[in-house]
């Protein structure tokens, strides 16, 4: 899966399913403060990522992830591993 494709899928589910304002979506946007994703939203994002990318996010692997770009890096690494 190409990086652009991952970014497009993430953007689409953030806007359509998590209802993040499309205007604030950018690689440098922080998940918590800029995108407004809280801990309950993240429980749903785990489910959505599993549906789209076929793996389960592990909290311990996400400790360094702050921005949307880093989140896509993480997904890319997991998709490549498979």
């Amino acid at each position, binding site marked *: 899966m190409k990086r652009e494709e991952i970014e497009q899928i993430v953007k689409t589910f953030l806007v359509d399913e998590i209802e993040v304002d499309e205007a604030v979506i950018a690689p440098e946007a922080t998940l918590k403060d800029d995108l407004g994703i809280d801990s*309950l939203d993240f429980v749903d994002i*785990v*489910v959505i990522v*599993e549906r789209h990318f076929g793996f*389960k996010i592990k909290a311990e692997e996400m400790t360094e992830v702050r921005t949307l770009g880093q989140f896509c890096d993480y997904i890319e690494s997991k998709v490549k591993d498979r």
Partner: protein
Amino acid sequence: MKRVVITGMGIYSCIGKSLDEVRDSLHEGRSGIGVDPLRVQLGYRSPLTGVVAPPVLKGLLDRRLRVGLAEEGEYAYMATLDAFRAAGIDAGYLEENEVGIFYGNDSSAKAVIEANNVLVEKKDTMLLGSGAIFQSMNSTVTMNLSTIFKLRGVNMTISAACASGSHSIGLGYMFIKQGLQEVVLCGGAQETNYYSMGSFDALSAFSTRVGEPARASRPFDAGRDGLIPSGGAASLVLEDYEHAVRRGAPILAEVVGYGFSSNGKQISQPSAEGCVIAMERALKDAGVTPAAIDYVNAHATSTPQGDAFEAIALDRLFGGSRPLISSTKSMTGHECWMAGASEVLYSVLMMRDSFVAPNINFETPDEYSCKLNIAPRTVNKNIDLLLSNSFGFGGTNSALVVKKIK
């Protein structure tokens, strides 16, 4: 003691999703019953159900506030939006004033079963999502409505089987009457999905008159063969009379009596004695005699046994005065946890517009119902005082007396 009035109502049901639409359905004797093809596929003994399309809340309510709402909570949200609007209660009022909530609900089967299905398939609780817990608990309706509308008063769900909605009004009435709250949102919600009714279908309690859905619910009729499950939600704003007058709220009717009892007998068998005790207590609380009641909205669900016991109880209490009686379940089906609230709402609409809704499909009385003054057709009539009955599994009984405001 405070006087308690109803200042707003909202409804989401199989006979209408606005007070006007419901009023017209009641007046015209319109049935909301249909057939659910899924239940045929799943081996239900009866596929009959009240037909209620779930509302679309995306765009109306923020995602975080939506994900915890189970189906019955969505219905309750829609009904409550209308009830608060009708009562003149907006976000500003709720910000500055304490409003309580007692709401009837006794299951959230779809949410529970769907979460379990995911668990069985994925074997991982992390894949259940954030809403599953808030949708699955019995208090799902009150926990969500209190969050959405920012309610800060008394907050709890009343689970009392098919009397849940009625007891919720009774308890809201008691809290206001005693001066503990000025405004309480009361109501009842009932899911209509097939998950929620499989185990009830197992008791062979549902009508199998599948070829004639609109004629299947026939409370008190000799040819009745069971109830039809139904649902939706009904919300009523109960308020201290003086508080309502002070803020210029519309006053629709006054709740003047609440009676309750428990049969203490077999789990599914009704009791004429229990019904009579609840009704007598409600009348005593209201300070009125049976002869003063103009209309009784019967609990009668269209089951052979339940209707017979209620008819015996009604005849015992009202034999001398013979008020007009109808079961609106003939049109709505049995709205279960919601019924006690929706039927007060239906009755208040009749009181407002001076008519008694028909007990449709009442064609042939049986040995018990022949003693009652049942309205098979709409009767245009002034109603000053009405009684609404609700009885549930486990022998829980509730009766409410409502008075016209003049």
